[in-house]
């Protein structure tokens, strides 16, 4: 009895101490890092330094370009040692928050563009604004506005798409449509050139007994790309940008958005997707498409290497064909940008590294290793095959059309909210209006709190 009382007293005491201790996060609550500073671009004069880099370039060609560029950087500056820590996208996302707030943060990190990641880090003052180095290295000229908006925040992290640059991307991404050449021929369907023709092709494929679209949506995010692709054809571009950047004054409850949600629900009802969309994962879906079990796959350019390896010349890629009277529009943007942490004690070296891995020479290396460089895409000669389609699609959308942001950028919780809501939409368990109301609630709550 006595020992129990002692234990209770000890526990109560410990809790009291804790409650009296500092508020969580107070150790990080410093003024935002300055946007002006002296920069040093002569890295060789800095003596021996170590640069810690966390990236998520783990797949074949991605890893190869990173290794080549890191080796070249260390060759140019023998005084710099790069300590590279490479982990998968999911692992990086879930550990970065803790890593950045620790005393031993890496110097350079790859942080996803959206508010859940880069936005939160900027608000917490964990990333350095790149403006001083952008002037020194001429990054304003290197990256066009359409790319810069994806890595720009105001210094308080509240406005996305404007303000200071916080990261530099290496690669571009575009969500388009893969199609199985042999299947289209077998079914006697021509490659669609307009959105109306595309929908007609889906109906024709279904009528012929084929599965028009492959989709695996256990994860929730794959359906975002399908919905985004439909939305891009039906909803004005500025509306989508405002929603996706989480800006004030837009709404999900517009007739156009409702129409887009209805369209996806109709596709699901008509059986355009494979069986059990919410029960199979993304990998199973593209593999099923690769085996010829579906005619089309709506997905990002990142599938191209795997699909080409599996299907050879039987797979082609195109941007979503534009609806009548509209420019070609697709979801897309940049790969994960590289940013400099405010805890870095060698920010000048980090900046030189960022400059190096996004230089025109680096874009050449990216092309050679099968990646899609984010700038100078038109100037590159892609390797023959599916890469040519991907390069052409990205150029068409980024230069001649509308490259629209990912919808989950909008709020820190949007990826989750929308993923779950779209699962309901596709399963037919919630009508389009209810699904949009759920998404609107997330968006409205964030916009109001963000001020």
């Amino acid at each position, binding site marked *: 009895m*006595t*020992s129990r009382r*002692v234990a209770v007293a000890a*526990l109560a005491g*410990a*809790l009291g101490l*804790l*409650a009296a*201790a500092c*508020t*969580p*996060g*107070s150790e*990080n*609550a410093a003024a935002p890092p300055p946007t002006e500073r002296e920069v040093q671009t002569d890295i060789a004069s800095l003596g021996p330094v170590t640069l810690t880099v966390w990236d998520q370039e783990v797949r074949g060609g991605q890893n190869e370009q990173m290794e080549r560029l890191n080796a070249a950087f260390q060759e140019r500056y023998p005084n710099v040692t790069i300590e590279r820590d490479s982990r998968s996208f999911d692992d990086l*996302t*879930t550990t970065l*928050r*803790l890593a*950045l*707030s620790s005393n031993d943060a890496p110097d350079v990190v790859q942080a996803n563009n959206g508010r*859940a990641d880069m936005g*939160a*880090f900027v*608000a*917490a003052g*964990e990333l350095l604004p790149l403006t001083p180095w952008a002037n020194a290295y001429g990054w304003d000229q290197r990256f066009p506005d359409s790319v810069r908006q994806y890595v720009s925040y105001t210094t308080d992290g509240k406005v996305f798409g404007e303000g200071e640059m916080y990261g530099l991307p290496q690669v571009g991404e575009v969500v388009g449509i893969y199609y199985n050449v042999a299947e289209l021929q077998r079914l006697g369907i021509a490659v669609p050139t307009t959105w109306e023709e595309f929908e007609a092709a889906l109906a024709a494929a279904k009528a012929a007994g084929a599965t028009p679209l492959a989709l695996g*949506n*256990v*994860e*929730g995010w794959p359906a975002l790309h399908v919905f985004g692709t439909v939305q891009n054809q039906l909803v004005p571009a500025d509306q989508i940008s405002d929603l996706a950047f989480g800006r004030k004054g837009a709404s999900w409850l517009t007739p156009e958005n409702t129409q887009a949600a209805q369209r996806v629900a109709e596709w699901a009802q008509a059986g355009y997707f*494979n*069986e*059990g*969309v*919410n*029960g*199979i*994962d993304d990998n*199973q879906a593209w593999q099923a498409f690769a085996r010829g079990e579906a005619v089309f796959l709506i997905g990002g350019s990142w599938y191209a290497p795997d699909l080409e390896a599996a299907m050879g010349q039987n797979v082609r890629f195109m941007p979503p064909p534009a609806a009548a009277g509209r420019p070609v529009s697709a979801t897309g943007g940049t790969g994960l940008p590289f940013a400099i942490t405010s805890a870095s004690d060698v920010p000048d070296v980090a900046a030189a590294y960022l400059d190096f891995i996004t230089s025109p020479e680096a874009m050449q290396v990216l092309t050679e290793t099968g990646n899609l460089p984010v700038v100078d895409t038109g100037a590159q000669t892609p390797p023959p095959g599916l890469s040519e389609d991907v390069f052409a699609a990205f150029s068409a959308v980024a230069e001649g059309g509308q490259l629209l942001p990912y919808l989950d950028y909008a709020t*820190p*919780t949007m990826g*989750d909210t929308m*993923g*779950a*809501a779209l*699962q*309901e939409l596709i*399963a037919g*368990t*919630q009508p389009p209006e209810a699904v949009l109301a759920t998404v609107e609630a997330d968006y409205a709550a964030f916009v109001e709190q963000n001020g």
Partner: protein
Amino acid sequence: MADTLVASTARGGSAARRDRLGPSPWHALAYVAPALAVYAAFVLYPLGRAVHLSLFDWDGLTLATFVGLGNYVEVVTDGDLRAAFGHTLVLIVFFALLPAAIGLVLAALLTRARVRGLPFFRTVVFLPQVVAMVVVGVAWRQLYAPDGSVNDFLELVGLGGVTRAWLGDPTFALPAVGVIGTWVQTGLVTVLLMAGISRIPDQLYEAARLDGAGPVREFFAITLPSVRAELAVALTLTVIAALKTFDLIYITTGGGPGNRTSVPSYEVYNRAFRLGEVGSAAAVGVTLTIIIFAINLAVARIGERR
């Protein structure tokens, strides 16, 4: 401490012996101190820290705002979180009650019916326990796939009409995950109960048989009351397993479709590491801890009652 020791040796004789053996709380504390220090550093401090964090609205990065019990109010009022706790109740049926029922029957059969090759059957029944939960999850995801073995079997026996993507079906996803739990936990329960049943003296059964009891009566009159303690242990373990299910959900459904299979443990992870709602995650974790503690207290009490 040193003073007491010096004083007691100085006094010497029988008094000293009584002192050393006597129930001084400080002696006891000295013995448990090393273990307590480790326990405090790795369990009590994190627990206290979680309670502390649960009182704040914190994104894990910027300065937190004190919200008092606001996060706990949210646990009760937020429909999604309430649903998550509701889902674990369903999982308890599949993880604890079903295995207990199946395990009792299996154990009674295996021990009483003098099965040939008993060690083999015992190993087979226990095997799911040995496999890592992640592996179990991946394997069952294949089984449940639209073109997986479960659907193949249903079609084979003429039930082609009920085939579906089990883990993506709004109605059946949660029971489908539950069945995996049943498959995993039954082995544990069976082996535990078999140990209990083999301890029951044969004379009891003989006496019952002389009194004219059949196998069913035997089961309820002798076997069941005799394994009460083992059953309590089995239920405690399996109920905890149900309540803290994370890996299975993470691997099979990720909480979907919609939020129909989300469970508190998954919400803790999701909120803390993916959504940046650390305070809310801590509140869910603390609530879950309290519930697990209460349920186990209740189960232990029932098991102890004679």
